[in-house]
């Protein structure tokens, strides 16, 4: 059953006619061409598809479009502002906090969700929040350091 679903995507209004039981991940990647959000498991178990919905980190692979209606969605493509990297992106670059890079957008978006909720997380809060995001290359130590750096530099003002 096709329905109209309206939401805000990376700051811009979007209106789509679609089967609203489809998952946000596929709509982002194939209907809207935003391939920065990755498929990794399809069951919310790896975090590669993490996006921000109304300020909270969500798994796009298990989020039906009807749950997105009327909400605000931010993907990795919407994170950089005014042509510059977001503090989290910058920290990931400066810490070499990635290898193959495939899990990286999900890592950054999940970390972004954490900082929106808790601008000054402790190391154990970072680890607890990131625990469901999987990285196979083993960049974990640097990812934690990058999040600590970004939080410190933003000084509570992450957005």
């Amino acid at each position, binding site marked *: 059953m096709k329905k109209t679903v309206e939401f805000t995507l990376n700051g811009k209004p979007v209106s789509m006619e679609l089967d609203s039981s*489809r*998952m946000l991940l*596929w709509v982002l*990647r*194939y*209907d809207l*061409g*935003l*391939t*920065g*959000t*990755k*498929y*990794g*498991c*399809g*069951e919310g*178990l*790896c975090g*590669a598809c993490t996006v921000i919905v109304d300020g909270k980190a969500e798994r796009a692979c298990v989020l039906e479009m009807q749950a997105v209606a009327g909400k605000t969605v931010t*993907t*990795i*493509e919407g*994170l*950089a502002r005014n042509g510059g*990297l977001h503090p989290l*992106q910058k920290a*990931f*670059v*400066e810490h*070499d906090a*990635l*290898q*193959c*890079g*495939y*899990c*990286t*957008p999900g890592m*950054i978006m999940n970390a972004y969700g954490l900082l929106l909720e808790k601008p000054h997380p402790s190391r154990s809060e*970072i*680890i*607890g929040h*990131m*625990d*469901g*995001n*999987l*990285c*196979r*290359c*083993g*960049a*974990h*130590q*640097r*990812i*934690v350091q990058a999040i600590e750096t970004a939080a410190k530099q933003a000084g509570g003002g992450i957005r």
Partner: protein
Amino acid sequence: MKPEYAGQESVYQDHLKLDFSGATPSGPSLPLDRRQFLQLLGGGIIVCFTVPDSLDAQEGERRRGMGQQLPQDFNAFLKIGGDGRVSGFTGKVEYGQGITTSMAQILAEELDVPLDSVDMVMGDTDLCPWDMGTFGTMSTRIFGPALRGAAAEARAVLIELAAEQWQVPKERLKTKAGAVYEEAGQKRISYAELAKGQKILRHVKGVAPKPQPKDTIIGKNVLRRDATAKVTGQAKYAADIKVPGLLHARIMRPPVHGAKLIHADTSGARAIEGVQIIEEGDLIAVLHPLPDMAERALAKIQAQFDRPAPTVDDKTIFDHLLKVAPQGQTVAQGGNLDEGRKAARHVLDRTYLNSYVSHAPIETHSALAKIEGNKLTLWASTQTPFALKEAAASLLGFPAQNVRVITPFIGGAFGGKSNNQQAMEAVKLAKLAGKPVQVVWTRAEEFFYDTFRPAAVVKIQAGESEAGLVTFWDYGVYWAGERGAPQFYNIPNHRTVSYGSGWGSTPGSHPFATGPWRAPGNNTNTFARESHIDMLAAAVGMDPVEFRLKNLTDARMLRVLQAAAEKFDWSPAKAPSMRGFGVACGTDAGTYVAHMAEVAVDKDTGNIVVKRVVCAQEMGLCVNPEGARLQLEGGITMGLGYALSEEVRFNGGEILHSNFDTYTIPHFSWLPQIETVILDAKDSPFQGGGEPPIICMGGVIANAVFDATGARLLQLPMTPERIKEALFKRES
């Protein structure tokens, strides 16, 4: 845009259509004549080079599997363009190991140019000459010296050009910052000016590179050059590629390996709007412009399979593997085992078991095939783009030069992306559908078709004197392969025998496909050897580090062991000391490593917490220490998985995992404090960096668990159940 990253559209793409199909072992290397080649490259100074066939014996197994030799003529080249930019062209690919950065450093160093004026063009079969593939930690240690040699040749050409122009002896000329200058100081000319309008093609003749100790770019910490593309979501992987008219495929799979399709009813799937069904023999696939709709349609197919009765499972596999093992091959021996047995006061006999593990890259196997007339373009997550090109051409009956494989960024490989099954599926479906087709495996397909690291058994009998000197070492490894099997201790009487190859298709051995997995064979061999050495130390009441030092004379190993002990602040004690400290060391890809770990074991739950890991690595001349540290940390973190949790559960051909809920890979909460030491070896050749740091993880944790509890684990992974069992065994 600069062609800086593998996978990005390169500026060369439009005007450079090179055909290197002839550069295979059987044919001539350069199908174009010299003039055409230069024209297509836009002129400049081009130096072609061959990666020497100096693969060591450890790689023999893999090479035989490839069935290919390196080409006779050249398989990489570099270009200095009229704009002064330096480009390296190679069939190697980037899957996270950082070679887009380190190879550029090698070129910049030898050519005396700033790092940001170097581009790497990689893994595109139309732009790069034939390459065997990217694996075995060979990119730096085997390819690196050849790349450096070619750069030395190019620098010599630049100096010759300047010498001719100025009519001065070339001995008086030097290079710096992308220019040639006369030592006396007056004359200076940039590479851009020298290369402009030139059409020079050279093959490497053997100009000596600059002396290593004077390096300023090699040995410098450089951040990853691909990071910005990756943190912004702009980096493209094979599943991110799109072409007009693209259809997404979902393929019907058998429930277990070896199952035969009896009947399939596709009528339910056909009812979904926009679906195209492909049925050809056993291949049934659903195509749709949207992948999730293809998935829904696939779920509506009703199929019946004839399932073979299971004959082995994850518990009986070890007995099975011992039973079907072929005759062994002696890979190392010395002295006389009988003499060694006579001299021994303590003899220790143990059998070690290691499980199948999955590669589990976060990017599943992906590919897109587009056929236009008699031409195929294929984007694929692959470690072997040139092998794929040949296979795809042969499947379609196209001449090889009509097939182009483009390797975008790869989302992790670890040895698991060499078979190209998904890409061949895409090719076949594109042909049958008459439209471009993308195949992106689901996580369940990834676990089902993975070429697992083989389960293996190691049997060791060894003896020592009262003073703790090992007098003999009799070692047999079954199905892990010989890499890392020969011991490096100073043992007078020893024999190492390998039964069955590390992977491959010996019928009746494994119930499903197996293949190379990061440092193939070595994780199993190092776990067994280092556990056994630890037990020999405990049997004579010696500290495990002291015991190793006493039985070692290899200077490189002594150095890494001492460096690790210093960093860890190891103080000698007989194990079990209840501190939970462990040590293990090993060699891989020409590199020496030593690990130390601290663990805590919860005796009620059997849970292990790895609190700290120290790794010292001597890898010869290290191109990018920061990039190498990243590999060390990655190896340690990934290695926690095969040590603690990763084990493929199966019943016959049925794989009992379809996702990360039951197959657990390392999480953030497992993260120990990691400290790494890269030993200075500026006068040494390049060695391997990415695989060695993972090999000790099983052994170092097993030894730390013993130190913490007195319980010895002889099987990986060390799950809570196995820990509890070992503790129970110790108490009773």
